[in-house]
């Protein structure tokens, strides 16, 4: 049972990878990851023809959404990513996610800790509005303590102002 759900997930994520890959820029990492599980995936879910809704229950690939400086509002570009997570979580009621809020290094340390939480909560609200149960979601803020990109310029800062989806097994 456990196995089949898991393989289904993989299959659907593969399918999704295909969709995303066609419509936007292909990500090297994802296609590599996809190829590792290709045989399993096609064996279980792929053949009996999933429709699009089911396909959307695969785990989304974009695990991060980004924010403007000192803002916690969801940018339109991030909304699709969150919606995909919402669909996935709604269809996989056992899925649990920790939303990690982060900031760039500008501004003060403690304000940023609160801002990171606010960003995580913004994402949480969209998930709940899209039908995800609040019980599936936890939030945590690391403020400016755990940058994903080193550096002291906008190219690093823009990558550090983020919320990461961390699924728990």
């Amino acid at each position: 049972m456990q196995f089949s759900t898991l393989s289904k997930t993989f299959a659907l994520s593969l399918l999704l990878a295909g969709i995303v890959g066609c419509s936007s820029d292909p990500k090297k990492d994802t296609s590599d990851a996809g190829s590792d599980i290709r045989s399993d995936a096609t064996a279980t879910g792929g053949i009996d023809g999933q429709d699009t809704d089911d396909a959307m229950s695969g785990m989304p690939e974009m695990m991060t959404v980004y924010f403007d400086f000192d803002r916690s509002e969801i940018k339109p570009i991030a909304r699709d990513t969150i919606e995909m997570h919402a669909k996935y979580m709604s269809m996989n009621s056992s899925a649990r996610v920790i939303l990690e809020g982060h900031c760039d290094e500008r501004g003060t340390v403690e304000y940023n800790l609160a801002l990171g939480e606010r960003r995580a909560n913004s994402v949480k609200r969209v998930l709940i509005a899209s039908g995800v149960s609040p019980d599936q979601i936890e939030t945590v803020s690391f403020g400016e303590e755990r940058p994903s990109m080193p550096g002291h310029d906008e190219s690093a800062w823009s990558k550090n102002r983020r919320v990461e989806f961390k699924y728990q097994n």
Partner: protein
Amino acid sequence: MRLMPKLVCCVLNLALTMLWIPAARAELVIEITQGRASAIPIAIVPFQWHPKSQEIEDVAAIIRANLKRSGHFNTLLPTEMLSFPKTEKDIYFRDWRLLKQDYLVLGDVNYESETGEYVAHFELYDVYQKKKIMSYKAQGDKRELRGVAHHISDRIYERLTGIPGAFSTKIAYVSTTKERKRFRLEVADADGYNAKTILESNDSVISPSWSPDGKQLAYVSFENDRSQIFIHNLATGKRQMIAGFKGINSAPRFSPNGRYLAATLSKDGNAEIYVLDLGTGSWRRMTRHYGIDTEASWSPDSKKILFTSSRSGKPQIYQVELATGDVERLTFEGNYNARAQMTHDGKYLILVHQAERGGDFYIASLDLRRGSTQILTSDTALDESPCISPNGSMILYAANYRGRTILAAVSVDGQVRHLLPAKFGEVREPSWGPILH
């Protein structure tokens, strides 16, 4: 001589604060980048040691470095002196006037073999009046000699500026590697010497805050993958988690009267200011707004709490009255004002200031009466975490300087500046301890 009993207490204090020493750690280096034009010229003659073989610390050099760093003094180097008088009768005041010195300090250190103590004695002279204006004695064992020199510096500083010296105080800060993989909460002397590690962690430690008696440090640690507030007893090394609620637990600050600890909690849904009564252990919520409220800081009388709030859309400084809960906005100028602290006289706020969106972050002072903001820093970038020295004269803060995170200091009037990089790695989150009597 008269001052001896009081002094013994100070020396005792000094001894007590040194009990929690584990191992010596990477220290800070001080580079003075800007002084005061109106600095007072003072000559501190090398101290005489008895016996000479016991000379183990250059006490005069420590005093010189302290006074110079304060920006209130220009100190004469021994190589520039015409003579090294040992006692009053050796002084030729004309020589010191020729060297344009206003004040002169002579001193000696006597080693007492029975007790193993060093007794330092010094005299302060007014060169123009040609008279002795202060005489003083301080003592301590080998480990306390730097402390004795700091204590003498405090006396001279206070006598000549009217401001209590803060050279005998401690600072806390967090040192880390460039990659931010290892964190050490450290406590050192105000001049960066004698650094001791209080806590070592693989996760961030932020927001150290001293209790007013200097015995405890509150801080936030991410060791459990989330922010939690701890209070750490420096003498015993024991610590206690005092806030590990759901959400963030952040920005602890002891009240100056020692009765409360203000902090930011989001346990009720959103970052708000709460006050913990340290006597009863009960939390009281002080703010109520859907915006961010954080970075509490007490007024000197412990009656008001300054805080940063995003309730207007951008971070600005507000204050809430402890008794009534009344909230008032204090800053209006600039795009981003945060982490304010009130000066001891209640006239200024020291804060992190960004004038306009996209601009740099500097330490600034806000004149509360006039409403005008003065930017105090310029040679550092990404300035944050300012804290005012316990005598109210300097501000210690963290900043980026040539790609490194370092500590830096600026006087409250912006005239004096120095940089305090760590010898190795990076250093941030400073907090200046109290003056202990």
